[in-house]
């Protein structure tokens, strides 16, 4: 089985390639990259004017299965992922039950084996039931295949417990992903504390709720010698703390999500619950700081924080609506529209944030288009426009913060091994 892609703009930061070339894929493996490959192939794709890049690795995805299959399943979530160019993702463990024991990892692994159409990697919970009271059995979960630990959705408040968790994780070489939120400071807030909370009369979440916990987790990780990754950074102060830690050699990486570099708190006006997420949309200054941090490398990763919720959970009073938005299908297009076309990031820079860096942080040998590598790549039209509508989304839930927006960037092909698993309709 042979596949030939002609005239593609190949972007492979791992090998420092950024040029118009051809690529041949044989039996699922990249066999040849070069100018004007003259080989016969069963399938030939002319990718003139389009970009061929490694598939995205989205390291922050809530697939909701097991337990909340009304919101999303591994099957529906991975179909959405593929459509968005995400070929690999890390499933968050805040399911029902939480992925906190050997048995629960096995359960999830079984579901993935049966129904995933993208590569799904698993994260295990730091604490049993994500209750922050007692550590989960890291070793047993690792044997079953988890590659990271997180209580995402909450932070481990107990500092002693967090200290132990980081030491144990280090021993096992596991990455700890930190959801940084200090609950007493968050004060049951639902939007950013500032002019928007004042205008709308809603309870506000101050930036301190995030950055104080970022600081704590960094200090504890530094002492423990554990690698940590700060999830969904939303504000400037957190970035200052992360940048300083990186400078002094702490093994910390950071991620943000497209809504934090695209939208500000003003988007909540009118009480649109599809703009309600945790952490909340922040000020214009914070948004600018996020863009700057993407540029200067303080932020390593763009991840979707795909958080599907049903319409009946979102179409309620703002106070009662669930936090979170879907994002798998808009991750790439929003990044292209808001970062690439606005020259915040170069194309190789963007590919690093979406593919190379998350893959490296998770220790996956991916995101390279080197000869001999398993093909896991996407072909993207960077300029083709589309509008985000509920109908355009294949995810089971439609709670996108970008509904109604026109975006640029369409995933034309997704190739996994020797198969074209997705082809955009024309």
């Amino acid at each position: 089985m042979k596949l030939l892609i002609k005239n593609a703009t190949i972007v492979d930061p791992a090998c420092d390639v950024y040029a118009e070339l051809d690529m041949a894929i044989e039996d699922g493996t990249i066999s040849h990259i070069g100018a004007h490959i003259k080989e016969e192939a069963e399938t030939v794709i002319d990718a003139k004017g389009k970009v061929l890049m490694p598939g995205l690795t989205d390291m922050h995805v809530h697939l909701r299965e097991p337990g909340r299959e009304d919101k999303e399943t591994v099957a529906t979530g991975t179909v959405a992922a593929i459509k968005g160019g995400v070929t690999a993702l890390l499933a968050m463990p805040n399911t029902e039950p939480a992925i906190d024991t050997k048995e629960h990892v096995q359960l999830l692994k079984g579901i993935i084996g049966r129904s995933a159409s993208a590569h799904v990697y698993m994260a295990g919970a730091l604490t049993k039931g994500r209750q922050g009271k007692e550590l989960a059995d890291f070793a047993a979960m690792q044997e079953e295949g988890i590659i990271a630990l997180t209580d995402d959705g909450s932070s481990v408040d107990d500092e002693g417990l967090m200290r132990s968790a980081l030491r144990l994780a280090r021993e096992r070489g596991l990455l700890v992903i930190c959801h940084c939120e200090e609950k007493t400071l968050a004060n049951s807030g639902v939007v950013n504390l500032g002019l928007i909370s004042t205008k709308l009369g809603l309870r506000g979440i101050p930036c301190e709720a995030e950055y104080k916990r970022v600081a704590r987790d960094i200090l504890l990780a530094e002492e423990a010698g554990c690698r940590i990754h700060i999830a969904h950074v939303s504000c400037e102060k957190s970035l200052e703390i992360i940048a300083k830690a990186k400078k002094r050699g702490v093994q910390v990486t950071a991620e943000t999500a497209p809504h934090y570099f695209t939208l500000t708190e003003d988007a909540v006006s009118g009480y649109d619950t599809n703009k309600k997420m945790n952490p909340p949309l922040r000020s214009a200054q914070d948004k600018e700081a996020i863009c700057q941090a993407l540029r200067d490398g303080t932020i390593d990763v763009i991840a979707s924080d795909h958080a599907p919720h049903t319409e009946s959970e979102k179409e309620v009073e703002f106070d009662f609506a669930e936090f979170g938005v879907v994002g798998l299908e808009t991750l790439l297009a929003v990044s292209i529209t808001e970062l690439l076309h606005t020259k915040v990031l170069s194309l190789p820079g963007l590919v690093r944030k979406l593919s190379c860096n998350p893959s490296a942080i998770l220790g996956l040998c991916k995101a390279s288009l080197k000869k001999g590598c398993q093909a896991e790549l996407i072909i993207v039209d960077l300029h083709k426009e589309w509008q985000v509508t509920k109908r355009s989304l294949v995810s089971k839930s439609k709670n996108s913060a970008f509904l109604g927006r026109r975006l640029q960037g369409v995933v034309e092909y997704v190739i996994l091994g020797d198969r074209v698993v997705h082809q955009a309709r024309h």
Partner: protein
Amino acid sequence: MEWKRKDLLGLEELDKEEIELILTTAESFKEVSHRYIKKVPALRGKTVVNLFYEPSTRTRVSFEVAAKRLSADVINIAAETSSVKKGETLIDTGRNVEALKADIIVIRHNSSGSAHLLARNVGISVVNGGDGWHEHPTQALLDMFTLKEKLGRLKGLRVSIVGDIAHSRVARSNIWGLTKLGAEVIICAPPMLIPPRIEAMGVRITHDIDDALRDADAINVLRMQFERDERNAFPQQIDYFRHFGISTERLKKAKKNIIVMHPGPINRGIEMSSEVADSANSVILEQVTNGIAVRMAVLYLVSHAHDKINEATD
């Protein structure tokens, strides 16, 4: 100028002309309450539903009286706040009311934005009777109506709002309305009760009650709700009166004819002394009377706009 909105959700989204239209319409309705037969047929055959998720006597009664003086039928629903998990959702309740062929829902709800949510999901008119800490547009309109009646204008007036600004929908609606009509607004409260960046809404902040009273044409004193503030906002009720309460002595330093307003119900001895509440400066009961005219105007305007919109789409 024609009123075009099927709903009244807040004063933030209204422009100056729209607010003025409500106030002048209210002037023409005020006289109805002084007739021998206190009724006009303006909303005859219409049904107004008061959907109240929070206990409220004065606002509910005021809307009820207003609707009845317009000859509308009135139904009062005291509803339980529904969470996602139990009970009927707000949208379902709203759609049920709509299915009863009601024409206007007046909603009072403890969650900010609930009037907006309802208005987005029903075709009939929605009037915000107070949503959380967000807005209470008819209260601000009746405050402005009263001020205009007393002082002949709003432009250029200096109005101080004193009390728990952070948790007050009355404050927010007054700030939007008064600043749009050219009044100068000063807010006065202990720092913990002033929400962040409120100066961006066009007000001046002071923590000194004497400063707030100085040169003020009117003072709007909010009800202190100690039960509402969970933590550490203000230590003691008695302290509050000492620092922020309106007493006769304090009032002596203000303009002689300063107008004293209060949305009610008053905590006598906490935010103002009994003496002040009953003084010649106080217009608290006139506010109640004017509330009827203002709410008649609002019900009338939204109902007609709704009918017009429907005719246009038929």
